[in-house]
């Protein structure tokens, strides 16, 4: 019951626990705008406090929003300047504006709201469908535009982080697979009849190429794109050796499709984002640790354990930050099917985890194997489009005037 005394002083008793009505919230919003007009609040504070006031459940919530502002002067005790039924429309608009990125909203929410409210006819109870669609579409466009002052949209930042993490994951899983392979060879010396397994070459080439791409400090998108394309083509050439000679009983398909997806994603990540350096700036130990734990889990545990550990890591990832949510979605591209498909070759739920694309890439059937390469080609296409758009754009902006 803090502050009940003040309320009594004001002539009426309102408990902080009482629920607020729409009219109460609108009155608080008007007070905040008056304080803003008087210069006591800046635009960012106004936005934050308005959001808090319009979501207030109790009088206590409203009091906290107004706590450090002086008592309303005579001008503020006049009835609301806003017509009472406009509050509903304003709340609708705020809900739609919530589609915009947070950084954008901090700067532009009040301004856009002013435009929306000024343009809306006074009788309008809520935004029309076309108007709502326009705002949502606008939010999507703003989210997809790169920003100039370092505040990048979430997916772009997540791609930058992925371009650092993915080589790490691939390296960890490759090492784990190699270790496992060596134990198998140790147990059954004649399983591979002494020759170097092509999939191992494949896996090492892929992960080394990705590491190289991540570590090269290439500043320009076009250069990054060209190098990525070269690495991708070289990798496809290396992997095509093994497609012709699958080794169905054992490990032949372990590295191929998994690495193709990972490499494709890595190329998209390195070209469409601001690159691994930006990723390193953003990467927190939390995300890196969770990702590496996930990769190690996939690599060393058997199937049922993976199914238990991965969701826990996913939940932790989602809860840590919005960047974590994006990372999860992106990392699901190579890691997801890896976990989801049971092993079709070995004894039930064995640790042969690289075979997740088995439905696509059956043993000894080069036809379906081609489908994995269709996926890779898809990734390549996306990356080429992204690279071209960016380089065209920078060239156009750099073009000297006539």
């Amino acid at each position, binding site marked *: 019951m803090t502050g009940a005394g003040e309320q009594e002083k004001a002539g009426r008793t309102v408990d902080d626990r009482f629920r607020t009505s729409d009219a109460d919230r609108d009155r608080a919003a008007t007070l905040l705008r008056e304080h803003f007009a008087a210069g006591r609040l800046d635009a960012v504070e106004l936005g934050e406090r308005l959001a808090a006031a319009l979501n207030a459940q109790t009088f206590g919530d409203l009091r906290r929003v107004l706590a450090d502002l002086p008592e309303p002067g005579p001008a503020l005790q006049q009835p609301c300047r806003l017509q009472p039924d406009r509050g509903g429309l304003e709340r609708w608009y705020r809900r739609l504006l919530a589609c915009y990125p947070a950084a954008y909203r901090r700067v532009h929410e009040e301004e856009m709201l002013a435009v929306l409210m000024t343009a809306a006819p006074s009788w309008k109870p809520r935004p029309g469908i076309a*108007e709502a669609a326009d705002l949502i579409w606008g939010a999507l466009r703003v989210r997809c535009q790169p920003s100039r002052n370092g505040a990048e949209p979430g997916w772009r930042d997540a791609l930058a982080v992925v371009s650092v993490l993915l080589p790490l994951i691939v390296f960890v899983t490759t090492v784990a697979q190699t270790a496992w392979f060596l134990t198998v060879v140790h147990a059954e010396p004649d399983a591979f009849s002494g020759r170097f397994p092509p999939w191992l070459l494949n896996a090492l080439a892929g992960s080394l190429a990705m590491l190289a791409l991540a570590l090269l400090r290439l500043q320009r998108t076009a250069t990054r794109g060209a190098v990525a394309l070269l690495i991708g083509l070289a990798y496809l050439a290396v992997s095509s050796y093994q497609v012709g000679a699958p080794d169905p009983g054992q490990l032949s398909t372990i590295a191929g499709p998994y690495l193709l997806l990972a490499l494709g994603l890595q190329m998209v990540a390195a070209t469409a984002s601001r690159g691994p350096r930006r990723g390193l700036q953003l990467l927190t130990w939390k995300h890196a640790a969770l990702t590496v734990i996930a990769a190690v889990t996939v690599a060393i545990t058997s199937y049922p354990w993976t199914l238990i550990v991965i969701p826990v890591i996913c939940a932790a990832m989602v809860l840590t930050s919005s960047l974590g949510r994006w990372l999860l979605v992106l990392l699901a591209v190579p890691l997801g099917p890896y976990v989801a498909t049971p092993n079709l070759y070995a004894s039930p739920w064995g640790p042969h985890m690289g075979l997740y694309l088995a439905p696509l890439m059956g043993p000894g059937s080069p036809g379906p194997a081609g489908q994995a390469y269709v996926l890779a080609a898809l990734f390549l296409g996306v990356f080429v489009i992204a690279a071209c758009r960016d380089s065209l754009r920078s060239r156009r902006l750099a073009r000297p005037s006539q």
Partner: protein
Amino acid sequence: MSELPLREPTFLILTALAAGPQHGYGIMTDVAQISGGRVRLRAGTLYAALNRLATDGLVEFDREEIVDARLRRYYRLTSEGARCLQQEVDRMRSTTTVAARRLRLLGGTP
């Protein structure tokens, strides 16, 4: 992204700002007026375009005002923006000149 030819909303926004700094609602009414009421920008379209133009350096923040306890943010054309608009005007003029000349020829030779 602001390659020529400019998309019509972009062209009209730049044209509106060529008269001097304007705030969001001012741009909307001005665009409606310039286009004879044909193009009515909505807030989502306007601000997505402004965001892109600001990113490309064609438009910049001018000043803020508070009117009726509401925030108004004014934008102005940069020199880069003026140059871009000029290029678009030149491009349109050259095509319309050719079109007009050929229409005249068409009229002269039945």
